[in-house]
């Protein structure tokens, strides 16, 4: 029996949060403006009204305070879901995340579990002012003790947020903010995949594209366009940024011999580097070209009227593919 619905990513997140609140009385939602306003992106719309101010509550304006008190709530047995309003505002909480959230389980030798989810709308493309378009995922993926995921479709939005909340691991949950309004089917009965699995979202044979979050759509568009040039590209959505689920990537690269990794974050010491390093190690004799990266340049995120220059797009992705195939 299927129970599919068509939802935007934003509504799917909202529905997923709602269901998590229903399923477990210990789930809390906290952050700036997430109550009456429903969050600046309305992801928590209606939740305070339906679950009360005790479970869905606005915090004072300080991110370290949000994450720090979430730790305390988790120690008390709650399962807090923190919203960070925009990617660029997670850094005041960085110490609490990296030195506390990430390490509590390890240093307590498993005595303490912090089932905290930190939701971060990330990435550019919405014409925003500075600090509203960052892609800080590498900062978290490099941190042992954290898990990091990103959804790219409404279905994944719906299920991955629930899986993240149900997980006892602390999870940084990156939401592709420019895709909040994109629609897709959502199977409400059961999830198709575990949380930390990557997925081939388009099969192909000439080259492999790896992306996550907002760039999955860009990669799929590029693959679509490549058909005209007679190229058949495989597209993999990583979904989990830490740990990485690399087996589908290795398998793909062994077939195609070509890999292009796409992300918005700057290349230098980013996720693309890690994927390149691992794929080269695992598929050394299959690669017909080095792993190439199509990413934001190594400059601060620019003013909105320059973001099209900054962001990887269909053309830049195809350029990367051509360079790989022509190696």
């Amino acid at each position, binding site marked *: 029996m299927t129970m599919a619905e068509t939802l935007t990513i934003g509504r799917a997140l909202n529905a997923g949060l709602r269901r998590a609140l229903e399923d477990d009385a210990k789930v809390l939602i906290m952050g700036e403006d997430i*109550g009456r306003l429903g969050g600046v992106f309305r992801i928590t719309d209606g939740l305070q009204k339906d679950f009360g101010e005790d479970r869905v509550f606005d915090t*004072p*304006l300080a991110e370290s305070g949000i994450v720090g008190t979430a730790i305390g709530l988790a120690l008390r047995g709650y399962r807090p879901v923190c919203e960070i309003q925009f990617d660029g505002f997670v850094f005041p909480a960085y110490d609490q995340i990296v030195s506390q959230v990430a390490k509590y389980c390890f240093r307590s030798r498993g005595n303490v579990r912090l089932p905290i989810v930190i939701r971060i709308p990330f990435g550019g493309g919405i014409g925003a*002012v500075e600090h509203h378009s960052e892609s800080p995922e590498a900062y978290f993926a490099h941190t042992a003790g954290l898990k990091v995921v990103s959804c790219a479709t409404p279905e994944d939005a719906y299920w991955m947020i629930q899986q993240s909340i149900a997980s006892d691991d602390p999870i940084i949950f990156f939401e592709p903010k420019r895709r909040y309004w994109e629609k897709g089917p959502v199977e409400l009965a059961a999830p198709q995949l575990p949380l930390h699995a990557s997925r081939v979202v388009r099969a192909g044979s000439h080259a492999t594209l790896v992306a996550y979050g907002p760039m999955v759509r860009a990669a799929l568009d590029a693959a679509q366009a490549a058909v005209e040039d007679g190229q058949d590209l495989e597209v993999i959505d990583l979904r989990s940024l830490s740990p990485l689920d690399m087996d589908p990537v290795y398998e793909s690269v062994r077939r195609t011999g070509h890999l292009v990794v796409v992300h918005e974050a700057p290349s230098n010491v980013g996720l693309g580097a890690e994927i390149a390093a691992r794929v080269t190690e695992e598929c050394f004799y299959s690669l017909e070209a080095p792993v190439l990266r199509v990413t934001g340049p190594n400059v601060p995120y*620019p*003013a909105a009227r320059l973001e099209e220059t900054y962001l990887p797009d269909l053309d830049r992705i195809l350029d990367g593919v051509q360079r790989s195939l022509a190696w």
Partner: protein
Amino acid sequence: MAMAHTAGADRPGGLDEPDFVQLLSPEGERLHHPDYDVDFSDEQLRQMYRDVTAVRRLDTEASALQRQGELAIWASLLGQEAAQVGAGHALRPRDMVFPTYREHAVLYCRGIDPIKPLSLFRGADQGGWDPDEHRFNMYTIVIGAQTLHATGYAMGIAKDGKVGNGDGEAVLAFFGDGASSQGDVNEAFVWASVFHAPIVFFCQNNQYAISAPIERQTRVPLYRRSAGFGFPGVRVDGNDVLASYAVTKTALDQARLGQGPTLIEAYTYRMGAHTSSDDPTRYRIASEVESWQAKDPILRLRRYLTAEGIGDDAFFAEVEAQATREAMQLRERVLAMPDPEPLSIFDHVYPDGSPLVDAERDQYARYLAGFAEEVA
């Protein structure tokens, strides 16, 4: 003339605070305050009127430009003109200002071309004026971060010996009621106090941090925060340009003279949305907004000028017309604003440059040239 004191609800946003300074009642009545008695010249008052009117008009224009898609977003100062113009007038040329993202009126009083914040909110740049030129730092969007920069700058003033003497300098640091919860702001208080820095913290309590009412940040009035850090705090009627001027000037003078920091809480109200992206009907009721209309900062100044014969209808009309001309010019200049060059994203990443950025610029230029070839 009566003694200052306005009643209000007993909440952190309440008005029944002994230190609430008001020199102009909502009805335009001139009040006196034992500690903050200032004589204003007629010309000074007229200039203040010109400025509050101009900045409101510019703000209206910016909001319109945003609705027409010419700005990506706009953070309106509607309702906060008096707080900002009063503070702006209290500054001396060598004083340094650290704004948030809403101090368009202070920027205006500093003599900065008002196109600057518009190009920022248009997305054409990130507000790249030279902070030194008009002694007005760039806008800061990360809540509270600038209060530490301001404090460090003030420590530098002290190191330069520009304090406690004739050519004393001071810093005026703005932040909002929401920002008061940030660790950075409280650390700035620690530093300012310990280093006795020549700084005035100017908190515009406009009662909201986006949707969060002031009760979500504090149980007691914000001006009381500083005492526990070792310096005085004062609450001023932020809709009263005269009081804002008087309180800011006194505090800046004290800072310049080496008497250390002051916290000013300008009690005001954000009449509009947080920004053009916001929908305040979700979190506050119309009657609240209306009740503040009666306290309009421009209206009360106009009433006062009228009553005292300092401004007549001709004056008000002329000020209005001048404000409209400025706004229209601004609009034209916004429409004519060129988009930045794509390759400029590689500029100024580092003062000393970087081979990584240079290589990427070159690669990108070749990539763009490839398109041009294709097209040709």
